[in-house]
């Protein structure tokens, strides 16, 4: 090293290590930050639900006990947790670089996610058929919005799973594909976590 570049006490002035920032860790960190923002959206929706679930907010319409079907929600809980488990298996396969395993895990997660949306759709459709629509009262507005905000996240998650399946098939495990799979894992597990919160704080407390 050129001595003229050495400062006081031989301080190093320019990086000699050819530092490359860890791209995957930066991307997943950034995605965690995005999830923090998403958590704040759900926190607001949960707060709105709790504020709007007093008897006065039902405006004489259906009460929480009338609209909550905890058994349906329980099946949904099983479906979404199994879907997350399937995604977990995809991640195990990713560690060993097993492309088939990753694709199978993604497919399982996607199908179980679709099943979740189907059950939820049936549940909400039956409510609407019975006149318990989001326009009926403040309470039902908050209930539908919270559940459907989660559902919309699930839809985007499914689109993302499909895109990742194509990318795994096309590109294999490049840096880009790996960080996206990791981010999708965060996103997908987060949806399961949100659903468990909805199940506990909306469905179970609703029928109690």
């Amino acid at each position, binding site marked *: 090293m050129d001595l003229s570049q050495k400062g006081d006490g031989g301080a*190093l*002035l320019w990086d000699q290590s050819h530092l*490359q920032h860890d791209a995957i860790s930066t991307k997943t960190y950034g995605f965690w930050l995005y999830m923090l*923002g*998403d958590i704040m959206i759900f926190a607001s929706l949960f707060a709105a639900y709790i504020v709007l679930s007093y008897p006065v907010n039902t405006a004489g319409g259906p009460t929480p006990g009338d609209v909550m079907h905890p058994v349906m929600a329980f099946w949904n809980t099983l479906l979404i947790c199994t879907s997350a488990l399937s995604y977990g298996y995809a991640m195990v396969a990713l560690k060993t670089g097993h492309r088939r395993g990753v694709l199978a895990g993604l497919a399982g997660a996607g199908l179980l996610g679709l099943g979740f949306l189907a059950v939820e759709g049936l549940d909400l459709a039956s409510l609407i058929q019975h006149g318990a629509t*989001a326009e009926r009262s403040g309470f039902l507005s908050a209930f539908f919005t919270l559940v459907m905000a989660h559902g919309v996240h699930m839809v985007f998650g499914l689109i993302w799973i499909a*895109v990742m399946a194509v990318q795994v098939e096309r590109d294999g495990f490049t840096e880009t594909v790996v960080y996206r799979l990791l981010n999708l894992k965060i996103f997908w597990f987060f949806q399961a976590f949100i659903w468990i919160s909805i199940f506990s704080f909306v469905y179970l407390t609703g029928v109690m």
Partner: protein
Amino acid sequence: MFVHLQGPWNPLTGRLAWSDIPYRNAIVDGAFAFVVIGALVILTWITRKRLWGYLWREWITTVDHKKIGVMYTLLGLVMLFRGFVDAVMMRTQQVLAVGPHSPGFLGALHGYLTPYHFGQIYSAHGTLMILFAITPILQGLMNAIVPLQVGARDMAFPYLNALGFWLTAAGASLLMLALFVGDFSHAGWIGLIPLTELPYSPGVGVDYWMWAVQIGGVGTTLASINIIATIVKMRAPGMTWGRLPIFSWTALSTSVVGISAFPVLAAALALLGLDRYFGTHFFTAGMGGNLMLYTNFFWIWGHPEVYFVVLPAFGIISEVVPTFSEKPLFGYATMAAASVAIAGFSWMVWLHHFFTMGAGPGVNAFFGIASMLVGIPTGVKVFNWTFTLYKGRIRFESPMMWAVSAFALLLVGGLTGMMLAFPAIDFTVHNSVFLVAHFHSMLLLIGFAALGGISYWFPKIFGFRLNETLGRRAFAFFAGGTFMVFVPMYMLGFMGMTRRLDYIAHPQWLPLLIAEEVGIGLYVVSVYYVAKQFYVSIRDRARSRFAGDVWGTSRSLEWLTYSPVPFYNYAVLPHVNSRDEWAWRRSHGVASRRPDHYEDIHLPRNSAVPVILGALATILGFGLTWRIWWMTDAAFAGIVMAVIVRAFVRNTSWTLTAEEVERLEQGFEDVPPTQTPADHALGGAVVLETADNPP
């Protein structure tokens, strides 16, 4: 499923009809002519100079954080001008419409603005100034400076950075459209509930406001994510937390606030949107809705938003004051801690915006005390700046003038804020112009700091400095205007004048209103000098070029790069040895910008996707506002498609070889610094550290 609307609607143009273009209003006509002629002049000039290709390649599709920062700042300055014109209109209306015998013009009973038009103007003024003027200017400065300060080649996510900018620009475009196509919201920038609900505001004004803020807010959230990731993950070797420049500390704190607060606004506006479009009952009066839920949500975002804009301003002051005192910043650790503390407090005080809600003494006492606690970290900052000035070699160049005035103004705004933090006092002056004067003191301190920051870092980014004489004149008139407008406003607040008045029933207030009008006149002169300063400086740039450190005494890492900064920032990442790295290198005689070796640099490729997404978001917002469903469906599908297509683009980066870097670097002049910092000054030994003695 959709609510039943009163008035005409058709599938092709939604609610939009020719009659919605308000060509009968002389004021809007004038503004329209001004904007159209201005746009035509600029577009013609670009075409004649054959700059379209250059603009597209170098600016519109860029992912370079410095250029995005410049575009953010430019957008903010343009919006600042429009918000300022709104202010002039409001002040003029209030000075004309005093007493029952005041004349009326242009169809107004008193003054020249009808109440509905006046309502739109104060709503637009607030929305513009806070969200589309101050926020983009500060975002721009953070964008341009933070990666340089932490020793990175770009932001952590350059593509996301461009997307954040174009979404902010999309929100601003919707606001400009609202001026000429249809109405804007008349419900205040905070969206007074239930006035924003469909039965009370059946027009499109609230929708414009809602979607402009929503889309702009998404952009700001993305920008916050980016800045946090950049500071946490992209710091150069040796840039420990104890060496991070204070501006970067404030950028970090402010972005934590941004990322946690803006989603709450997004949720609040989305729920309001559901009320207006689907007929839900979140915030309606009756049917189980809860009005105060909206107000709580809004201020759970709104108060952190205030600190979101004030923290970078504090950071700018903390960079400018040491540079022009020729001393290290006093109390670095407490300054960093105070920034984080202010960010934390921002979450505990929202209810002080509506003490009169009637939450009871316990709740009001909690929020009153929490609001007063904010004074502690803020006071720490003021004392630290003061001690930095103490026994320093102070030079009053224009950035320093802006900075010192900013913290003088902080005293005024802060102390009146302490008064308002008492629920008992707040009940008395709630919704008076005393409150308006208080928060304008706070926001103007941000304005002062932002303008100071622009004049401080402009030479860093562009390699030539702004005209000093004109800058001083701009400052003098701006400061005079601030004094003349807001001192009478404080007095009027104590005399009982409430805010948002389009007609003044008390003629005895007229002298003070005239004083305010004189003040706004001073601002007009200041705006003229700011514009002239940019024009003259750019015209005469050949004479004010310099290659290195323009101020001679600047301290932090960004001054280690050349000016203008090369697109790769650092040929080799610097190894950071000390807190004020550039000052340290200068005082140890190693202030060469030439690295000892060269290496390959990986850089992100430009992309047209962010600007396309921004355009689609504008179309989406416009379609939603006018309920043109084919347009919203097409724009939304386009957005989803563009994101997916982008996900399949493979070569998103390129490599600049070491030889090429070396060749480019030879083109820069490595000017050794002429002045050394005053190491003998008080505090010098406290803050400077060497590599042997890390924090």
